[in-house]
């Protein structure tokens, strides 16, 4: 177990972070290159004011017509994304590991809260799964990849929860937890999880078009 643990938490973690950060940079830079090469005009329409107006509006719960139309989804989606990002970043165990490696540490979530946030992520994944299966308009545009992505996102949190309680085979699950986290990190730039990178850009562009050219709301 020592060697497997050391491998997944050492070289493999490095690889995952390199692929994650490198992949994100690659995707963003190659998109910019594409803009530069073919759609330079996009720059001329981008407006900081309207980009931020749009991003802020769409980052505020219930601030848009469509969010008000789907209150349950709005609550779940916001809770999901907040917990998804904050929990791993401010988890005691994660910060402890980073402290041991790099002597860096920061504020951590109380364990009880982190536990609830983990459960929120898992529950939200279940909600999304049910939504995909039950809502005809979602089901129609769902492919296998959507389920795989959902599983990739849910896995680190499910295993993380089991590992926290040390249920089932702790050591195997911990290794699976680390592996699944690494898979998710690498998946971000190379799958549709890349909406983490691109959504602010598409939002900003649409916000700029609506604000600067169309003089209309985009919410």
């Amino acid at each position, binding site marked *: 177990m020592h060697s497997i643990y050391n491998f997944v938490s050492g070289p493999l973690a490095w690889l995952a972070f390199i692929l994650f950060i490198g992949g994100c940079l690659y995707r963003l830079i190659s998109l*910019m290159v594409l803009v530069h090469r073919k759609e330079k*005009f996009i720059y001329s329409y981008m407006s900081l004011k309207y980009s931020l107006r749009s991003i802020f509006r769409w980052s505020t719960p219930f601030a848009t017509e*469509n969010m008000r139309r789907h209150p349950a989804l709005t609550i779940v989606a916001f809770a999901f994304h907040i917990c998804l990002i904050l929990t791993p970043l401010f988890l005691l165990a994660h910060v402890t590991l980073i402290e041991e490696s790099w002597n860096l540490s920061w504020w951590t979530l109380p364990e009880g809260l982190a536990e609830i946030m983990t459960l929120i992520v898992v529950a939200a994944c279940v909600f999304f799964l049910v939504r995909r299966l039950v*809502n005809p308009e*979602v089901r129609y545009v769902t492919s296998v990849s959507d389920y795989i992505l959902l599983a990739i996102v849910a896995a680190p949190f499910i295993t993380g929860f089991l590992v926290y309680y040390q249920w089932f085979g702790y050591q195997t699950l911990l290794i699976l937890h680390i592996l699944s986290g690494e898979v998710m990190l690498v998946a971000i730039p190379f799958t549709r999880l890349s909406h983490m990178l*691109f959504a602010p850009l*598409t939002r900003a562009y649409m916000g700029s078009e609506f604000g600067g050219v169309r003089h209309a709301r985009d919410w």
Partner: protein
Amino acid sequence: MTEAAVKEEKKITDEGLEVGVQNLTAERIQKVINRVLKGESGARLKAYVDTCVHCGLCSEACHYYLSHDKDPQYSPVGKVKQTLWKMLKARGNVSADFIKRASEIASTECNACKRCAMYCPFGIDIAYMMLTVRRICHLLGVTPLYIQDTAHSHAVTMNQMWIKDDEWIDTLQWQEEEAQAEIPTLRIPLEREGADIMYSVIGPEPKFQAQLLYQAAVIMDVAGVDWTMPATPGWDNSDMAMYTGDNEIMGRVKRAHFETAARLRVNRIVMGECGHAFRSVYDMGNRWLGWRMPPIPIVHAIDFYYELIQNKKITITEKFKEPVTLHDPCNVIRGGGLAEKARYVVNAICEELIEMHPNREHNYCCCAGGGVINCGPPYKMTRMDGNRIKAEQLFAAKSRGAKILIAPCHNCHSGLEDINHHYGLGYEIKFISDILYEVMDKPA
């Protein structure tokens, strides 16, 4: 002995599509798709396709989806799935029948109204993707016959309706004479270089809505506007080539239009109550030609009436009595931000405005725009079945007292006439200028 009623599914036959697909080969399809998706398209298409998480939240934005009892095939993303996703996944290796269906979806089951862009959390521009599909179909020669014909007309005559150069001048002079019966000094000044304003209209106005030219002339005359109209091709601001994906023709038509205005050395182009033409000169055509914004300022009729009324160039004798409701056309409201100005104008000329809901940027599409009505009679029922929600929306406004429906856009106007008739709504549909002309203070 009765047989169960079977809902009759009328198969649409469109020669443009039928004949078009016969000329396709697998190689040609693949070549064209890749030319557009890999060659012409860039970061936007890539970001849109890669960012979409298939959440389906755009569905409720679409009037087709709502009107078809939430049939997912009609949701915006559902239409992307049936067209672009497959093309991308198969790397262009799709059948001729697939192209035919893709053309039908993109050209007649989407009005490119961009309401869905306001519903997508990521601001993905699905209308842009549908127009990209139209572009592919255009390059493959699989475009609905009627709209293709108007695109041909643009290519040949620089106007939408095969109007000959002399017919155009003739029509203007005819309307000038007609109006002189009312205001003897009235002129429709042709080719007056250095005028402040060039007034531009769409092909159908001289073709069969000449009274609109009359009304415009009276409004201009009474307001004392320094205006002119061109006597050469380039007078038409409409552009169906924009909607078939024939960007090259769109560019030619728009260049002719702007160059005509430049030749006349006008300060501004004022246009009639048309939505798609506004989009073509303000959004798409100018961009194709390389102008960030129109090279000569474009003023839509709504904006122009607002200006005239606010500056008291036009005063109102007696407001229009009957309660009206206002349809917000996508291209000038969601595309031009004229929602409040439209209300200012309508309130200035009418006693009572009863809002339909939703309204402003969120108004339901007329289902005629985006070139759909221009695809002609084969698709009339596509529009009627595809916009039951509009009928419901209009009916609700009617039940609250609205009698007149104001539609300040040609496509909306025609499309709503069909809806009005098909669903028996009993509205009278008017342009703003119809009412403005009626209630404005004119020399006795």
